[in-house]
């Protein structure tokens, strides 16, 4: 594809608009972000907050199951209350969206930035740079994510804001695959005529990277990133399951899922709400990611590959 300019952007929007599914997904994502941003407003309208206990709304003798049908749904508590504590589920869900989306997006940004920088540098640098960066990438890929997160999250003092920390840890540990993809894609692009032409005409590596390569790797990166967001949400959930996620009383979807899975029989809505929210988010992001990719580069829409750097190996 060509370098982005005013016409490129216009073209992109035109293409995106023609995809109904992607548009719907974009609206859903926008709504989710809006809900997350407007969480204090929404809960104010409901008249609740995510942390106040309502012991009278749960049946203490039965393990704290919510009193009333559908998990205690009422005019005051739109989606019912949490078992044991009686905290308002609607408030926890919308506040949870803030944390879950925030952590996942921030982690994705970290992963993409590191991944792109390392991947492009490895592809454009000399053989030593490539070897070094590729080995580092190998090390990162080969470290078990969960284990390292457990350790890292235990090391950092608890005064450090937890959501930021979780995002950083996920981001810093899981950028290996995106770096590989970017490196492979960059190596492919490097051989293409217009890039070679640009190099021949005396452009420096940095300029080539910025002007010619970045637009070229945008499609696979965006597609992969769209999948990373939901993955990161579930990683946050898994870390909560292992006891090192975002700290209470801050709600997150992952934390809700972790607490709720045993309630699947006694209070199903407690599990279904965060699970449903997560599912809608993942679905919307994935469809949107596909749409964006198609709009960016309809012909290379399926060029998503897991990079393995075969070109460089074959040549060397």
């Amino acid at each position, binding site marked *: 594809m060509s370098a982005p300019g005013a016409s490129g952007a216009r073209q992109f929007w035109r293409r995106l608009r023609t995809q109904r599914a992607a548009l719907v997904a974009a609206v859903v994502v926008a709504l989710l972000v809006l809900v997350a941003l407007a969480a204090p407003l929404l809960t104010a309208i409901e008249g609740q907050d995510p*942390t*106040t*206990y309502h*012991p009278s709304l*749960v*049946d*203490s*003798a*039965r*393990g*704290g*199951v919510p009193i009333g049908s559908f998990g205690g749904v009422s005019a005051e508590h739109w989606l019912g209350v949490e*078992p*044991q*504590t*009686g905290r308002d589920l609607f408030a926890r869900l919308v506040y949870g969206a803030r944390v879950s989306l925030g952590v996942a997006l921030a982690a994705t940004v970290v992963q993409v930035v590191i991944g792109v920088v390392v991947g492009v540098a490895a592809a454009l640098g000399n053989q030593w740079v490539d070897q070094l960066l590729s080995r580092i990438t190998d090390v990162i890929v080969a470290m078990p994510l969960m284990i390292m997160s457990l350790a890292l*999250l*235990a090391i950092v003092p*608890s*005064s450090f804001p937890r959501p930021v920390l979780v995002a950083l840890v996920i981001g810093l540990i899981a950028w290996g695959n995106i770096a590989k993809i970017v490196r492979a894609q960059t190596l492919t692009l490097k051989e293409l005529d217009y890039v070679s032409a640009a190099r021949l005409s005396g452009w420096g590596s940095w300029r080539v990277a910025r002007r010619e390569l970045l637009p070229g790797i945008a499609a696979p990166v965006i597609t992969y990133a769209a999948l990373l967001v939901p993955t990161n949400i579930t990683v946050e959930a898994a870390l909560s*399951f*292992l*006891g*090192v996620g975002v*700290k*209470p*009383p801050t709600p997150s979807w992952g934390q809700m899922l972790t607490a709720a*899975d*045993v*309630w*699947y*029989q*006694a*209070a199903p809505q407690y599990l279904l709400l965060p699970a449903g929210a997560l599912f809608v988010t993942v679905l919307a992001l994935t469809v949107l990611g596909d749409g964006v990719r198609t709009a960016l580069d309809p012909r290379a829409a399926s060029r998503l590959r897991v990079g393995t750097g075969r070109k460089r190996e074959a040549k060397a």
Partner: protein
Amino acid sequence: MRQSSVIARRVAAASVSLVVAAGAAACGPEDNDAKSAGGDSTPHKGGTLTVLNSQPQQDFDPARLYTSGGGNVPSLVFRTLTTRNRENGEAGAKVVSDLATDTGRPNKDATVWTYTLKEGLKYEDGTAITSADIKYGIERSFAPELSGGAPYLRDWLVGAADYQGPYKDKRDTKGLSAIETPDARTIVFHLNKPEGEFPYLATQTQFAPVPKAKDTGTKYEEHPVSSGPYKVVSNDNDGERLVLERNTHWSASTDAERKAYPDRIDVRSGLDSSVINQRLSASQGADAAAVTTDTNLGPAELAKVTGDKDLAARVGTGHFGYTNYIAFNPTIKPFNNVKVRQAISYAVDRSSVVNAAGGSALAEPATTFLPNQKSFGYEPYDLFPAGEAGNAAKAKELLKEAGYANGLTVTLTHSNSKDFETSPEIATAVQDALKKAGITVKLQGLEENDYKDKIHSVRTEPGFFLAHWGADWPSGGPFLAPIFDGRQIVKDGANFNTGLLNDKSVNAEIDAINKLTDLDAAAKRWGALDKKIGEQALTVPLFHPVYKRLYGEAVKNVVISDWTGVLDISQVAVK
């Protein structure tokens, strides 16, 4: 005891699978569930009992096990000088003889204890059990290689403080001089101070005989030599799966406590607690003859079980001496002000704390530090009555007197484990309640190891944190002394006297009670001492746990004592 459950494990770490093992609170004075549940049909010998556990039996060396009363599975293999009475409820909190003919004969000031072994006691290989083997078993528990047990032997035996066990010092064949074995059936213990509760200590696995010729050091746990009704057939994956079969040299005529109905015991562990409860409730196949010794019903499961009569009939309810509380460090502002401590005591909402711990069926609000059981000398008191939901008005009043008329911001330290004891759920419940009294609580959640390091070190101890304490044996001694005896403050190691209380009158009373060999009389005075200490508001007792555990359909003869609070495997029948 150590603060963890009845099951001996060196590390009460925040295990991933401990979701349900929480527990909760309290024991009503009389609870008949256990009795009505299991005792209806006659038990018979035979069959295989399956034990589904979350924690692997990683330690199976009698030297390393840290148990209350000898443990549940370990007690099938290791007999000890004394043991716990295998009866329901209160009667089960009594100590009775096991290998010995009685619970011990003290000298006048309870500093010398003499035991005589029963006749005809044999190991699994048919050789005779001697008093020297018991001495050797205790000695090896001093080896650094086999650390893990309770601290009492080291603290109580004469000249034991620096002893390093029989491996290091091979020339000294006499071993610990505090223990004498004048003949093969007699063993005498010399203590450095009066200890009327020595018979309780003699229930721990360190008092199990170990034949020196069969000792393989750290490898002994793979196949310890059995003195009990079962022997180890296999121990896979470091206690992940333990298979026990009958020890044919054990004789019921020398053992009044263990019934040993099943032919085979199959202990499977490393299971997720929700899975254990699912399996026990489904009760299909081998799971019909299954029990668990370490996994409680969680609140979610309880909600389901209470709606189902068949399941509810298969729940054993028990009480273990255990208290969850808020601890203060009075050297840190503003907790140096007793009024602030009292204000917090008044402000606490025990009903929301109890709910967070699993509801009224799993937790009972606590206003005393001692567990509410007779054997502890429980004397009910409520010095700072908070009512069900906290007395915010009274708390505000006290804060005003303390000079915090405009409220107060404090940090509550808790662990990030999932035990529903010192975990975030409880901390947020406290946070929410104190808000009503104008106290803003910031939460500081620490990873399990970090949390333990911090709260048990005099140098790093926070001012305001969640803590818990459990009974090494059902008496006030091991419950109060480590926490409130000023001489047990440890400056350079693990300190449990977190209130840093060093009160001469308290110390003197502890010494006086330790002299008593009449355990009932001692219990009364422990109860009174508890109330006296309570006046200083160094802790805010929150709740005592109630253990509710499912067992399979074919399980009979369920016995749950107040000593352990869980079903005793030595009594269970599956036929």
